[in-house]
Structure formats: structure tokens, C-alpha cells
């Protein structure tokens, strides 16, 4: 039988992979993608618990998280485009000025 821990471990694995991506990659686009992974890991947990208790609230919040991810991606990519236009780079460690 599949227990809730199965899903928790899957979520944990995805979360950790996402964190590693955020911390180690230099490319901001990949960092953003890793954040999407983290959000997904959270979604898995929410939906798994929603199934466990037969309550749809978890799924509703997963929906909110997806909406949030969309907003984050749009703004993040907007910033990346603006940054790329000015500095011609998408590397995180070259974003070292507060103003340019």
C-alpha cells in the first residue's frame, strides 16, 4: 500500500534537488527553474495530504501555489530580460550592484 510517507519522501527529494539548484547554479534562469521544482515538491505534499484526509482544501492551495509560481516566473523573467538588456549576462554572481 502507498503510504503518505512515500509522497513525503518524493517531495523531500524534489525539494532538496531544487535547493541544490538554487544554491549552486550561476544562471538565473536555472535558479528560477529550481524554484519551480521546490514549489512542486510542496504541491506534492499538499495534494497527498488532501487525498489522505479526503479534503479538497489541499488541492485548492496547490492551485494557489501554481498561480503564485506563474506570477513569480513572469516577474522573474521580466527582471532577467531587463537585466540582460543592460548587462548582457544572466549570471547571478554578476548581479552585484543594487543599481545600474
Amino acid at each position, binding site marked *: *500500500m*502507498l*503510504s*503518505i*510517507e*512515500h*509522497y*513525503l519522501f*518524493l517531495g523531500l*527529494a*524534489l525539494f*532538496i*534537488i*531544487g*535547493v*541544490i*539548484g538554487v*544554491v*549552486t547554479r*550561476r*544562471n538565473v*534562469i*536555472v535558479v*528560477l*527553474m*529550481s524554484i*519551480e*521544482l521546490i514549489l512542486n515538491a510542496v*504541491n*506534492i505534499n499538499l*495534494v*497527498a495530504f*488532501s*487525498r*489522505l*484526509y*479526503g479534503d*479538497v*482544501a489541499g*488541492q*485548492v492551495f*496547490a*492551485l*494557489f501555489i*501554481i*498561480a503564485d*509560481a*506563474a*506570477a*513569480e*516566473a*513572469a*516577474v522573474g*523573467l*521580466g527582471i*532577467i*530580460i*531587463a537585466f540582460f538588456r543592460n548587462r548582457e549576462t544572466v*549570471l*547571478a554572481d554578476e548581479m552585484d550592484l543594487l543599481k545600474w
Partner: protein
Amino acid sequence: MLDKVIFYFFAGLAVISAVLTVTRRNIVHSAIFLITALLATAGIFLQLRAEFLFIAQIILYVGGIMVLFIFVIMLVNLDVAVRQMQFARQKWVALLISLALAAQVGLMFWSAGKLPGQGLPVSEAVPAAQLPPNSEEVARSLFSSYLLPFEIASVLLLVAMIGAVVMAKKRT
């Protein structure tokens, strides 16, 4: 049994593609593997009988957000980016953080004394056949109990949209 096979298939797919996402040098490959990971997650949702979330994941994440990602990847200069060093020198920090995270969660499991397969079976409380129609249920919940968060989310999206347009607009 079938449930288990489906779960392990999608879980394995998700983890492998997630690993490839953060390790590929080529950003487009990264994005492709992220799409695979997201699709696998959608499969997990389906296996959890969250049909609406499954299709929301596909339409919004795979059909919307990732297209945006790929679009931006193609707009910004890729050739140069591939040749540059891809990983920061924070490997040890990353290892430390992930170890700490894993330890924390492991501690939790240890203190609960449960391993996967021993805990609460997800489909026991409500058998699959007795679940109400999923999209109707989600809609009812979304538009009654969670109406305010829903409105807040829509305001958030509006703000994000305006923000993205302002960011990406060419300054003249």
C-alpha cells in the same frame, strides 16, 4: 499494485529529471527536463485522484510557465552562456544545506518511527470510488470557503502582469 507501479514510475521520472534539470549545462536541456519533472508530478497528482490539479499543472505549468521560460531562454544569448562556468563555488554550502534538510526530515520520520509503507495509507480514509467529482469539488471549495484567497491571488497575478510588462518594457 497498479497504483504502486504508477507511483514509482512517476516518482522515479520526477527525481531523475529534477536531478538532470539542475545539472545540465545547456539551459534548454535543463528546461526540457524540468518539463518532464513537472509532467511526472502531474502524473502523481492523477494517481492521487486530483484530476483538476493534474490538468491545471499541465495547462498552467507545462503549457504556460515553461513556454515563457523557453521563450526567454531563446531570446537571451545562449551561445555565450553555455561556455561560461555554470556552477558557483557554493557546492559545499549546498551540500550542507541539503544535508541539514534531510537530517531534519529524517529526524522527524525517526521520531515518528514510520518508514514509507508503514504509515497511513493515502487511499484508506476515502476509497477512490467514493471521491466526489474532483473539478466540481475544487470549484465549490475555491468559490465558497476560499473566495478571498482566490481574489487575492487574482490581484497578485494582476500585479505580477503589470510588473512584468514594466520590467520588460524597452526604456526609451
